[in-house]
């Protein structure tokens, strides 16, 4: 449900775009057979679409009420950086906040958290789960004001289930569906045999064009020209099938490969390696994908290589990362971690979060020197007129203007405290 979100949150911008767009794009787009779809609609139809979008938000608002109490907004100076989710962890006696590590990395000692009930809390970084791009921050002595999210034991969601981003005001900030079930995005989690397959379909099996030196295939004695007939019990009808089968296996697992060499039918045991680089048949050219990923969306700086994420078509801004996501029953589904592209947002599933919280995170100092998430410096961020930015961002939500001012005052107070604290440090 992408349009509803756009229409609700940035309708003025959208309409301006549509109007300006008409003046110089209309002719070209007519010839392109790709008219701006909204430009062709009557006012009545546009209103219908807008009301329809609102109906989805209004009907689902009550579902996020509880989770939203655990949503905090993180500020650096006057800028909203991203959201956070309050959780309890075995490693900490008080509730802590989970947020997107790469967004706060360079400013982690100066973050102010505004709770859903409007408290401004000074925070410090206390841990990092670098693989998941998650940071744990804590509010020194006022953690009792934080309301941790409740984990549920509900069954996993089906593909197509509706999910909701719980904004700190208790409103649904974005709606999407489950597009793809949780998976690892890391190539290292895919098995690798180390052969170049002939993708032109032969009569039977998959001919091998090349064996990578030192690979699992080489170690198992496979040679160029061998024709793979089966992997374990599965007969193969082509290279794509074989590639799929292999990538779905775990690195380190053992398979029996049946192959033909000359007139002989042979078998060999292979211990699979790990896919270190992209496979040879690449799909849509990367340059073109890069352009398309940004069409109508701002992707997060860190948006890949997550060990476990669910994919949704929910449209979010990179600064919406860190917020809790729920299903229609209000059960905690996961934490939004990145806008991936035009079509996708990644969400770390609640189950993964729960597992992480049962282990100790990395000590911040180590993570700071070790990890190389390469995020955009927040100083660069704040260079783009912070006050305008915060107004624009807050303007997106339903908060009235005076509430923004109130928040800004609170942040300034909290920052003042931080400065005092820093001064008192040896």
């Amino acid at each position, binding site marked *: *449900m*992408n*349009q*509803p979100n*756009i229409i609700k949150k940035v309708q003025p911008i959208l309409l301006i775009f549509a109007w300006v767009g008409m003046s110089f794009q209309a002719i*070209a787009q007519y*010839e*392109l*057979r*790709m*008219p*701006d*779809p909204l430009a*062709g*609609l009557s006012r*009545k*139809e546009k209103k*219908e*679409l807008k*009301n*329809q979008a609102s109906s*989805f938000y209004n*009907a689902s608002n*009550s*579902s996020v009420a509880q989770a939203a109490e655990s949503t905090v907004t993180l500020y650096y100076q006057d800028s909203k950086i991203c959201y956070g989710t309050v959780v309890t962890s075995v490693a900490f006696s008080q509730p802590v906040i989970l947020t997107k590590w790469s967004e706060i990395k360079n400013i982690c000692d100066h973050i102010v958290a505004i709770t859903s009930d409007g408290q401004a809390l000074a925070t410090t970084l206390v841990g990092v789960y670098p693989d998941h791009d998650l940071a744990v921050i804590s509010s020194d002595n006022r953690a009792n004001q934080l309301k941790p999210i409740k984990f549920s034991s509900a069954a996993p969601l*089906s*593909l*197509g*289930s*509706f999910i909701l981003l719980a904004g700190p005001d208790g409103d649904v900030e974005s709606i999407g*569906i*489950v*597009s*793809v079930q949780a998976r*690892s995005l890391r190539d290292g989690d*895919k098995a690798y045999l180390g052969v170049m397959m002939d993708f032109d*379909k032969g009569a039977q099996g998959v001919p091998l064009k090349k064996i990578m030196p030192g690979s699992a295939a080489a170690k198992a004695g496979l040679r160029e020209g061998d024709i793979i007939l089966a992997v374990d019990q599965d007969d193969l*009808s*082509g*290279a*794509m099938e074989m590639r799929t*089968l292999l*990538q*779905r296996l775990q690195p380190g697992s053992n398979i029996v490969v049946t192959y033909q060499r000359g007139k002989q039918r042979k078998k060999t045991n292979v211990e699979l390696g790990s896919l270190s680089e992209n496979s040879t048949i690449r*799909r*849509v*050219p990367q340059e*073109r*994908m890069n352009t*398309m990923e940004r*069409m*109508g*969306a701002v992707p997060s700086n860190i948006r890949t290589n997550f060990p476990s994420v669910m*994919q949704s*078509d929910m*449209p979010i801004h990179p600064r919406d990362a860190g917020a809790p996501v729920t299903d*229609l029953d209000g059960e905690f589904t996961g934490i939004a971690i990145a806008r991936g592209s*035009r*079509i*996708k947002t990644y969400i770390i599933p609640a189950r993964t979060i729960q597992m992480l919280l049962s282990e100790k995170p990395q000590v911040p100092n180590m993570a700071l020197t070790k990890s190389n998430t390469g995020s955009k410096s927040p100083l660069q961020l704040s260079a783009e007129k912070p006050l305008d930015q915060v107004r624009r961002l807050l303007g997106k939500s339903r908060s009235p203007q005076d509430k923004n001012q109130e928040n800004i005052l609170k942040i300034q107070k909290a920052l003042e405290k931080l400065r005092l604290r820093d001064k008192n440090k040896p």
Partner: protein
Amino acid sequence: MTVVAVMISEPLGAVPRPQDISQLKSLEQKVTGVVQKVLPATISLFSTKNGASGSGVVVSKDGLILTAGHVVRGSDEMTVIFPNGKQAQGKVLGANYTRDIAMVQITDPKPTFGWPHTSVGKAHKITTGDLVIALGHAGGYDPVRTPPVRFGRMIARGLDQFISTDCTLIGGDSGGPLFDLRGNIVGIHSSIGELLSSNNHASIEGILEDWDKLKKGDTWGTLGENSMLDNPDAPVIGIITGMPTDKGISIRRVFEGSPAGEGGLRAGDVISEIANKPTPDLRTLHIVIAQHRPGDIVKIRLARGNDFLTRNITLGRRGDILRKGNR
């Protein structure tokens, strides 16, 4: 006229608007139900010969596939991959490039219970605000993931039987199916614009109109040069083709500064041979061009009035022709 009258008289209140959680849940149930039913039939298509790739949907037990015209262009055979990883060979049947629709037939022997498929169903004309579900192998086939599902509604109807929705699409989705909440196919993904609400699909109405011709193997029409989902690196000569004649393929327009223009081709010429291969139909022309790369020189034999001419043409890139403003 009757269609127009019906559309006007239809109450706008028909736009689905959930009022509470229970109504949202019943919508959700429809979405998850449709996805479960149609996902196994949402296939990926690619050509080992020219690297073309996209998505499609199997619509019969026998393995008839609907896809986009620009996905099959230049291919006579394509590899079909099902979400469960099974692969099969497909033969390209017909295509209407103007509507960006095409058919492919799986040629491998049919499994005992037929290929996973979904039926076209009774297509009812969807209107602005109707809820829809899109599937497709976004970014290309990925073994560790099922084709991503997206949800949205119809925004508007365009020319040439195209419809736009806010189900977001990206490269690799082309040719994939759009469904209504009853699980009927209502469109085939074609192109995108800058806005999240600009995702364009060939509507089922156009497909049903052209069904018999497509199945018979006819290839006709002109692709919009616009599609962001299309491959800018594909080789082109830079013409809009007209009707096939008994001498070959007629040229309706030659793009300024294109390889065809530089090489002296003109509107009205008829292409009878390319690279020493006769061109009785559009598909043959596309296949021969797709076997080359931009920069290759191909010999084209032309009929111009009563004369026969031969011209050498240096193939260009689709993306470059676009950049010159030839739209």
